[in-house]
């Protein structure tokens, strides 16, 4: 019985190490091949459109309501200390440092990450990768590399959009609903937010962009070539990416502070 447990732990550990190794090689190949000729700009732009442009609406709604809730909660907390004037800086710092990159990444994971995994999994089921190979086209370079680059490019832009909309959401509630002075809201924000806060948010969003596209592509690419395999890959993508985002966020925050 004890030996069974040891064997199970050993098998699981070896399997995890194999997955990490395989996914590392996969990422290396995708990034390496992305810069080899021929560079397919149209593929990259198409992926940026899919991951970036098409996520605008969901990011907009999430950001708007996050900013509004933050302002509402922040106002009632700050009122207890008579510090309502700090609402602008509290909203801005929370969004720029943490909520912007993290919530934006989680939203993109749900919308684009799962779709990427499903798309790649279906390509695998329907023999589209061997078809590319038979046409003398490297599948990793053609399919995976643009998606990974697009993830890295799109996330910082979406996060910047999230930050702006979130701060505006806070402004709507704080200034127009709760009656804080407009100049105070933005004035305190300008003095409180430093370049390091914005820089930290950009670093985080770059890492999250890479994580989302990397995990989604790898899960799709290594999915079992069955319908269950694709569904499993999609679910795993959302779960693993979401958890990874939270863990990596903590690590990055501790490094950046």
């Amino acid at each position: 019985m004890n030996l069974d447990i040891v064997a199970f732990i050993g098998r699981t550990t070896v399997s995890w190490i194999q997955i990490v190794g395989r996914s590392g090689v996969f990422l290396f190949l995708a990034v390496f091949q992305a810069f080899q000729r021929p560079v397919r700009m149209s593929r990259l732009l198409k992926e940026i459109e899919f991951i970036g442009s098409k996520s605008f609406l969901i990011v907009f709604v999430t950001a708007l309501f996050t900013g509004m809730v933050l302002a509402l909660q922040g106002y009632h907390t700050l009122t207890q200390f008579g510090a309502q004037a700090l609402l602008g800086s509290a909203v801005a710092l929370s969004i720029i440092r943490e909520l912007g990159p993290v919530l934006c990444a989680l939203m993109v994971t749900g919308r684009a990450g799962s779709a990427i995994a499903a798309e790649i999994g279906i390509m695998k089921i329907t023999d589209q990768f061997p078809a590319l190979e038979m046409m003398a086209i490297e599948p990793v370079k053609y399919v995976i590399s643009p998606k990974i680059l697009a993830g890295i490019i799109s996330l910082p832009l979406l996060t910047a959009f999230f930050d702006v909309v979130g701060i505006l959401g806070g402004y709507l509630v704080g200034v127009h609903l709760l009656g804080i002075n407009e100049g105070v809201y933005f004035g305190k924000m300008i003095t409180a937010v430093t370049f390091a806060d914005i820089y930290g948010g950009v670093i985080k969003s770059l890492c999250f962009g890479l994580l989302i596209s990397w995990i989604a592509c790898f899960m799709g690419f290594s999915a079992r070539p069955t319908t269950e395999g694709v569904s499993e890959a999609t679910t795993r993508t959302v779960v693993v990416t979401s958890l990874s985002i939270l863990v990596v966020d903590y690590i990055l925050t501790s490094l950046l502070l």
Partner: protein
Amino acid sequence: MVLFVNLTPRYEQMHICRGIIVDTPEPVGYLCPMIRVENLVKTYGRIVACNNVSCRLEEKKVTVILGGSGSGKSTLLRQVTGLEKPDSGSVFFDGMDLTCATKKALYEKRKKMGMLFQGSALFNYLTIFENIAFPLREHTKIADNVIKNIVTMKLEMVGLRGTEHLMPSQLSGGMMKRVGLARAIVMDPKVIFYDEPTSGLDPISTGVIGKLIKDLNTKLGITSVVVSHDIASSFKIADNIIILYYGDIIAQGTVAQIQNSTDERVVQFVTGAPEGPISFTRTDASYIDALLTDNDKTTGKML
């Protein structure tokens, strides 16, 4: 009379030139094979998919690889096209061993190959026009108006002109196969591989695909390698037939030789007889034991 012995003659030692194994010249008196498979072995765990397979796929001929489900014919096709590496053995295509070729060299050779996949493998995010134009756009710098003409010509060949703007999901199975075929021939390959081209199709679509394969061979001189289990259509289109049974070649020869074979396994396969040396059941375990025991023999667990 079917030749049950290996038809492949003994070849001299291969030359090794800068890491690429180059084929030796053909002995005088033999037809030049487009593809030569030598002692190919491929296993998946304990399952032997190719058991020391050797065969010649001749130029400008239609060779049909026949066999039941799980006989290793699709595996053999994947080895021959270089999509999978064998455990051992060689596949010579156009004078080069694909099993140890570099990716660059393999991709150069692939430009001379076309393949029709069982499920057509069309890109579902591209229109029919873009699917067929895809290899041209990737590998050539042909102007758009010329690409349009080439695609129109290829679609005309497969009888689907006018469907350019449709998406693959809007086509039937037979039409998708024909589009897949148009894409396979768009680069004017020297050889086309067909993986189960008629499976799941109605009799008319089967006939149309069969005719297209034969026409491409006779009119354009394209070497064709067809993997199938459809005896009737195979006999119509084949010049040569190879029959696989659990990873072994049990017969190879012309259509007439296969039809006149006296080998019981070949006769059973050709006639589709349920009784014969090729067993319907896949296990050697006793049926009575299986009924009487509560445990799964392989895992030992309760069923």
